[in-house]
């Protein structure tokens, strides 16, 4: 049984304490880290703890599915975002286009886009921000040929970080949309 211990009872007078040290942790625009993160994502799809659930396939995912073929752009499933940004960057255009075209060609295929944020910000607001990222990617896919009904967008906010660190490299990895095909 976990029991909360009330420790260190601090009585502090905070009179007039509106000025606090403001150290801005370097505005976060680390494209190198984000790009590196994108490179490492490769064929490892996150967000599916029950990966390998066979038989639930939608018909889109066969044994030699292009979805999992490492040489196919469809095996790339993560799109990374800059800090406080919700715009899908041009460098992901080919990746997004290949998924959109796949959905267009396979009208039975369904995907979920899972939006994620870094750890900064409050939990519920980050759920909304992650949703905004997922919605941005969906919008682009629909523009590129996918059908609205094929895509569900959800958000994990900051709740499921792929990297647990408290540094820019971890944050960049966690500002991310993941594309998960139904049945995966």
């Amino acid at each position: 049984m976990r029991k909360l211990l009330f420790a260190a009872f601090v009585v502090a007078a905070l009179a007039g304490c509106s000025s606090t040290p403001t150290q801005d942790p370097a505005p976060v625009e680390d494209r190198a880290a984000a790009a590196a993160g994108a490179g490492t994502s490769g064929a490892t799809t996150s967000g599916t703890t029950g990966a390998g659930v066979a038989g639930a396939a939608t018909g889109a995912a066969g044994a030699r599915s292009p979805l999992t073929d490492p040489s196919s752009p469809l095996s790339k499933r993560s799109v990374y975002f800059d800090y406080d940004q919700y715009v899908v960057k041009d460098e992901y255009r080919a990746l997004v286009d290949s998924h959109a075209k796949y959905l267009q060609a396979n009208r039975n295929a369904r995907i979920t886009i899972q939006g994620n944020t870094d750890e900064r910000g409050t939990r519920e607001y980050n759920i909304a921000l992650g949703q905004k990222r997922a919605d941005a990617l969906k919008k682009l896919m629909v523009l590129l040929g996918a059908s609205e009904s094929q895509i569900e967008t959800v958000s994990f906010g900051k709740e499921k970080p792929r990297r647990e660190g408290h540094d820019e490299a971890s944050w960049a990895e966690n500002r991310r949309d993941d594309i998960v095909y139904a049945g995966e």
Partner: protein
Amino acid sequence: MQHLLRSLRSLLPILALAILATAPARAQLTIEIVGGAGTTIPIAIVPFEGENSFPLGISGVVGADLQRSGLFKLVDDTGIVPRPARPEDVRTSDFRARGADAVVVGSMRPLPDGRVEVRFGLVDAVKQVQLAAMTYTVTPAQFRATAHKIADVVYQRLTGDVGVFSTRIAYITKQGSRYQLMIADADGNAPQSIVGSNEPLLSPAWSPDGTRVAYVSLENKKPIVYVQSLATGQRQVVANFRGSNSAPAWSPDGRKLIVTLTKDGGSQLFLINADGSGVQRLLSSPGIDTEASFAPDGQSVLFTSDRGGTPQVYRLNLATNVVERLTFDGNYNVSPRATPDGKGFVFVRRDGGRFMLGIQDYATRQVQMLTAGPLDESPSVAPNSKLVIYAAQQGGRGILAAVSADGRVKQRLVSPAADVREPAWGPLLR
């Protein structure tokens, strides 16, 4: 006003002349002085007669409650013999000599049926009058609850405010990859897991009657809102629409919730019955609307929206549908929580990369920052509006902390093993 007068009246014996001189013009300030760091009420809690023969003594719990509130200082009564057990036995001069302004005495006496008679009395040592005397007949399992009740009485008599020592809190723990929704007494005792999951849990919210908790679970690979009964453990899906379902907030009558849904695009506020029926969109905004919090009168709802370009706190009047922006300083003011006294709200501000709690008054629009961060979030206001519990980071781990609504008194609640977050203060019962 009546409340202030009542508060003032009960304070006078304690704070005596210095306060009396300035009281009429600055009644409100008097209460703040009581809460201030240097002006705690010195109180002696005499060990209850007969409590040594029970596994849990009452006086220790009462003393710990009062001390934790930050408004009391415990005075050592060692050496006062014989120890008084009844108010009429208190020789106030003994306690005045130790600096005590008030004295708690009591007794625990076993009854033939196995229950125990707990008596307690509160004496004003300055005025030499009895302020309270009560008798409870309880089972040993109720000792702790009885001690909290006594602490509530003492707190109420000496500060004029309602005590919250008998309330409970909900919070989420994360240990390894295991998440649990816990319920515990307000002092952290008697923790109970009511939900466990290998996927994140967040945003617990008490029903106004304290019988149910709403929360968000990611166990189905997306945020879904559940309501769970504490008595039966049964739970019900309240919102599982296409997209994300989150941020549950109870209406004061406990019949409805506001939730944030994305089913129609964007994160938007919806009103829904507590059984999941009758979903109804509240507003249409081009951006994010989320983190609803009902005003205690149920007439308006606070929420976070980025409709103005940055996330700020807004208020929706449910009768007129008029939306009004409430926060203007800074570019990130989120997580509004209406205080139960109806006077304002607590929120989270990001300033220079730090996340800290502030409280804003509706009437004056004044903001007072309550904490300094760096990563404070998820505020929840105690039912007496005097304390705010919140999540903070310490040594890379999530802890719970509490701050008084005037920012002066702070405490930390540390769990030895788990990461603790998402506190929610339960209601007063009855």
